[in-house]
């Protein structure tokens, strides 16, 4: 089963920490909100978890898909 990063959009304040932790999978749009590129490959799972943990508004979640 693969895993995906989902953003809780009302909670996300565009601080951009997720991008700093996981630039392989996340970029920022012109307003600094994250753009998630595809599912999380196994080798990035650890960093994805860290990105979710690091979010100051807890707006990022790892969900099965």
């Amino acid at each position, binding site marked *: 089963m693969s895993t995906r990063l989902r953003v809780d*959009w009302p*909670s996300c304040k565009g601080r951009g920490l997720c991008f700093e932790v996981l630039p392989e999978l996340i970029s920022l749009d012109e307003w600094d909100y994250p*753009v998630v590129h595809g599912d999380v490959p196994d080798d990035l799972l650890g960093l994805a978890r860290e990105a979710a943990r690091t979010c100051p508004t807890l707006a990022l979640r790892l969900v099965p898909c």
Partner: protein
Amino acid sequence: MSSPVLVRPAGDGGATVVAVLPGAHVLRDLSAGASLADHRRHTPAPPTLSLADLLVRVRAVDVRGRGGAGFPFATKLEAVAGAGRRREVVVNLSEGEPVSFKDAALGLTRPHLVLDGAVLVARALGCRVVHVVLPGERAGVAAAVRRAVDECGREDTRTRWRLHRAEGRFVAGQAHAVVELMSGRPNLPVTAWQPVALHGYHGRPTLLSNAETFAHVAVLAGEHRAAYAATGTAEEPGTRLLTLDGHGERPTVTEVAHGTPWEELLTDEALDSPVLVGGYHGTWAAAGALRGLTVSRTGMASAGLSLGAGVVLPLSDGDCPVHRTAAIVSYLAAQSARRCGPCRHGLPALADAMHATDRGIDRSARARALVDLVTGRGACAHPDGTARTVASMLARFGDEVAAHASGDCTYRRSSIVADGRVAGGSR
């Protein structure tokens, strides 16, 4: 054909008058009156059906949700029933969409058919409570349904009714926003980690459906169900409600059998104009594109169109799809709950791009990029729906965008001067 019933969704003082045409099933017996006594003269109290019986009946005609998404009602019912625990039933009358009047029409002319459907579903699911969400922006509808619920409470003491009043905002009727309202929180969309059917009001499995859906369910439980099933096409039996924008005059709500050709519904003038199908979150049909198509999910899908919540908006003569889309996107941007970043920033940017394009400064590439950027990035489908309308305009009216860029508007038969005002008038 008998004459239409005229209703005022905003109440007695309201400016908008909607013509409701008598129909075959959901809109039958309109002239009898809307009170419970009137209703019971032609429609007996709903029977108590088991969940299995109800599932058989809704599956036989493949009832789809009429809030816009067209999700199979049987699948939703099964999901709620299968999730165990205590269940909730919610009738959603909050249309949100300012150009849709079908649920308002039902609330004003046949509220008891809707409530019968809700009672039926509640009994099949073993619920004693039915929640009814009233539209905030339409005081007349809210009052009519409130009155009908009072009458129901006197007839059937087994069912308890809970009324909620939604806010008059475009996104207020969205399923998760409705659950938020019912829970005493702001009536705004929140991130859906699970569908409302599995995790809704108080975390319980919640059958939340649009008012029209319950009306169809009520018909299926009644004596006219065979006639209902014989209406429409073999693939899509039954009928649906449409709001036909009045082409400048008052809107009409009509019950249409699936498979009905558009030529039977619209004037030649409307058929030969661009038509926005499905409302402000809809898709544009080019002039003449509805000719040869029918009112059906599959027929419309083959042409890249969707009926959505059933709004049909033909452009009036002299109105331009580029101009109209820009105005709609401005409206939708202002209706954003402003809680999700991409919607809050992206929709105003999209509106700017569309207005510039309308004024002859081609920002269609920017608009396309914004369409991709906002789609799928919000708690609700508001950015997605707004992007869909823009994308379909750009796909169908590329020539008109090019005409604007070279200083002309074909529809308004005028040239566009550099400061953005339309000059020249009729040529």
